[in-house]
C-alpha cells in the first residue's frame, strides 16, 4: 500500500509539451481513475508513475520515497496493459511466474503463489496453455494474475477493459472493484470512458490537454463540476450547455459575467405545467431513444439543441415538447469555462430591463 505523489510533473517530447506542471496526490488504498479524451496525457501520467516514461521535470514519490531514478521493476508497481502484453512464447504459468523468477524466489514458493493466484482469478485449469489459446477475457485474467502475484504496492491499469466485448467488460468491471476491496492496494486506472470511471473509481481525476480539470469523488464530479469541461465530460448524455446570449426568459444576477448555463438532461421535466417554477424551454423533438427504463429526447430549441432524459415515464410522442428545469438545477459558467458560484437566477419580468 502506498500513497503516490506527483509534484510539479512535466513531460515534453522534443518541443511538444504533453504535461506541464501537474500536481496530484493519489491516496493510499484508493481506486483512482484518470479519465479524459484521447491525447489528454492520462496514459503518459500513468506510464511516468510506472517508470516506463522519463519525466522531464518534477518529482514522483511512491510511499514517500522519490522514485525518479528508480527502474520500473524496482518501484514496487505492477501494471496491466491495454493489449495485456503477455509473453506469447510462455505458458500461463510462465507468464505469471516470470517476475517471481527474476526476483530469485524459490520454485516451491513460486508454485504456491502461482497456484493461489490462479485459483483467485479462475485460471487453475489453464496454467499450461499458451496465451494464443485463450480468449480475450482469459488473457485479461492472466495479465491481472501476473500483476497480482508480485504483491505490489501500486496497481497500474491502462485501459485494461477496452479490448473486451460489452458483456465481459461489465463483468470484469465488477471483478476489478471486488479485487480492489479484497487487496486494499492503491489502484491507478486509466480510461477514456467516463461510465467506467464513475462506476469504478472512488477518486476520479478528469484530465484535458495535459491539465487536471478536477480531481474529486464521483458524486462531487457529478453534482459539483468545477468547470464546463468536467460538466460536459461526466454524465450520459452530457450536461446541456446553452450560450446565455441565446437564452431568453432568465435573469442572472452575478458579480462576474455568466457566458453559459447548463443543466443535466435528467433534471429537466417534460410537460410539468405551470405549477413548477423554473427555466422553461421548448422545441421540436429531433430524436427519441427509448431504452426501456429510461427515454432520451433530443430537442431543438431556438437557443440550441439539448437532451432530456426521463426515468420510468411513458414515451412522449408529441412532435414538440416543453420542459422545465428548476432554477436550483441550473449551473452557471464564466467565459473562461469556470463554474460560477452564487449566481441568483430568476424569471425575467417582461417589464424589467437589464439582466441577460
Amino acid at each position, binding site marked *: 500500500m502506498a500513497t503516490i505523489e506527483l509534484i510539479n510533473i512535466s513531460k515534453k517530447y522534443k518541443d511538444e509539451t504533453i504535461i506541464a506542471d501537474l500536481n496530484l496526490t493519489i491516496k493510499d488504498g484508493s481506486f483512482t481513475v484518470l479519465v479524459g479524451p484521447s491525447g489528454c496525457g492520462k496514459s503518459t501520467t500513468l506510464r511516468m508513475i510506472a517508470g516506463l516514461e522519463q519525466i522531464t521535470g518534477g518529482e514522483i514519490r511512491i510511499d514517500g520515497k522519490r522514485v525518479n531514478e528508480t527502474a520500473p521493476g524496482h518501484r514496487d508497481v505492477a*501494471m496491466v496493459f491495454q493489449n495485456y502484453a503477455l509473453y506469447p512464447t510462455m505458458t500461463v504459468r510462465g507468464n505469471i511466474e*516470470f517476475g517471481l523468477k527474476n526476483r530469485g524466489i524459490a520454485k516451491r514458493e513460486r508454485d504456491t503463489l502461482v497456484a493461489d493466484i490462479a485459483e483467485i482469478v479462475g485460471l487453475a485449469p489453464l496454467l499450461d496453455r499458451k496465451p494464443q489459446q485463450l480468449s480475450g477475457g482469459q488473457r485479461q485474467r492472466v495479465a491481472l494474475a501476473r500483476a497480482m502475484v508480485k504483491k505490489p504496492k501500486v496497481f497500474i491499469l491502462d485501459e485494461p477493459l477496452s479490448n473486451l466485448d460489452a458483456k465481459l467488460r461489465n463483468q470484469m468491471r465488477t471483478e476489478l472493484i471486488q479485487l480492489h476491496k479484497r487487496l486494499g492496494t492503491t489502484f491507478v486506472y486509466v480510461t477514456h470512458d467516463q461510465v467506467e470511471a464513475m462506476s469504478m473509481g472512488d477518486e476520479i481525476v478528469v484530465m484535458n490537454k495535459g491539465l487536471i480539470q478536477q480531481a474529486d469523488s464521483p458524486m462531487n464530479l457529478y453534482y459539483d463540476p468545477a468547470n464546463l469541461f468536467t460538466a460536459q465530460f461526466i454524465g450520459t448524455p452530457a450536461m446541456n450547455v446553452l450560450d446565455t446570449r441565446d437564452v431568453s426568459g432568465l435573469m442572472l444576477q452575478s458579480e462576474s459575467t455568466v457566458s453559459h448555463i447548463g443543466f443535466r438532461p435528467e433534471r429537466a421535466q417534460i410537460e410539468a405545467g405551470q405549477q413548477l417554477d423554473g427555466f422553461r424551454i421548448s422545441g421540436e423533438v429531433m430524436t427519441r431513444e427509448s431504452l426501456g427504463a429510461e427515454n432520451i429526447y433530443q430537442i431543438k430549441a431556438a437557443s440550441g439543441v439539448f437532451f432530456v432524459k426521463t426515468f420510468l415515464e411513458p414515451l412522449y410522442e408529441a412532435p414538440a415538447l416543453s420542459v422545465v428545469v428548476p432554477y436550483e438545477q441550473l449551473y452557471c459558467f464564466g467565459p473562461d469555462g469556470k463554474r460560477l458560484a452564487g449566481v441568483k437566477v430568476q424569471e425575467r419580468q417582461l417589464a424589467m430591463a437589464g439582466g441577460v
Partner: protein
Amino acid sequence: MTVWEKLRPYGMVAPSIVIFSMFFIYPIFYMIYLSFYDWNFISPTKTFVGLQNFKDLLLDEDFRKVLSNTTVYTLLTVTLTTVLSLLLALWLNRKGFFHAFVQGAIFSPHIISLVSISLLWSWLMDPEYGLLNWVIGLFGFDKLQWLSHPGTALVSLVIVAVWKGLGYNTLVFIAGLQSIPSDIFEAAALDQSKPWTTFRRIILPMLSPTIFFLVIINMIGSFQVFETIAIMTQGGPVNSTNTLVYYIYENGFRFFKIGYASAAGVILLAIVGALTIIYFRLLSSRVHYR
C-alpha cells in the same frame, strides 16, 4: 457457364506454367534421366548404365572431399551469418542517423553482383599486394596465404559469403525485432527482467520463426555456392574449396561426363529437397507463431 469462362483461369496461368515446366520441371526430370546414362554431350548415343554413376560417385574420394567441403562451408557460413547478423540487428534496432547509415552500409554488398565481389575480395586477399595482409602486417602479424593455401582457402570463401549475406540477414532480423510489440518489453522491465533474461526468454523465442527462415534459406544458398569459387579459387588449391555445384560444373562442362554430373546433381537436389521438407515440417510444428 460458357466454355470461355471455364477455360479462362487456365488460360491466365498458362504462360507461367509453360515457362515453369520448360525451365524447371523438364530439366529436373531430364537430369534424373541422364544420371542413369553414360554420355559425353556430343555422341548421338547414350549408354544406359543404371546406378553405376551413383556408385562411382560414392566411391570417388574427390566427391567425398567435395561433400565435406560443402558441409563445412555451409555450417560455417550459416552459423557465422546468423549469429553476427542477430547481434548487429540488436545493435541497429533503434532510430538515429548513424544506425540508419550503418544499416545501409552493411546492406550494400547484397545488391552488388557476386562476380564483382569475388574480384574485389581476390584483390583484398592477395598474399603479396592485398589490403588484408597489409592491415594485419600493421599489427605485426605474419602474412596469411588466404586463397592460396589449402588450410585457409575455404575459410576465406566463408568470410566473403558472410560479408555478402550480413546486410540482408540483419535487415530481416531487424524486421523481426520490430514486430515484437514494445509493451512486452515494458512488461518485462516491470518484471525486473535483466537484459540477458529478456533476450533469452522473450526475444529469442519470439524471433524463432525469423531465425529458422534465415538458417534454412542460408543453408540452401550455401549448398549451391558457385560464383565465388569459380572466380576466386576454381576449387583449388588441391581441391580444398571444391564444392558440390562447382564439381558438377567441372564434370559436366569441362570433362563432359554428363551422366556423372547429373548423378551429383540428383544428390544435391536430394539434399536441398530434404532441407526444404525439414523447413516446412518444423515450421508447422516446433517454431512458435503468435
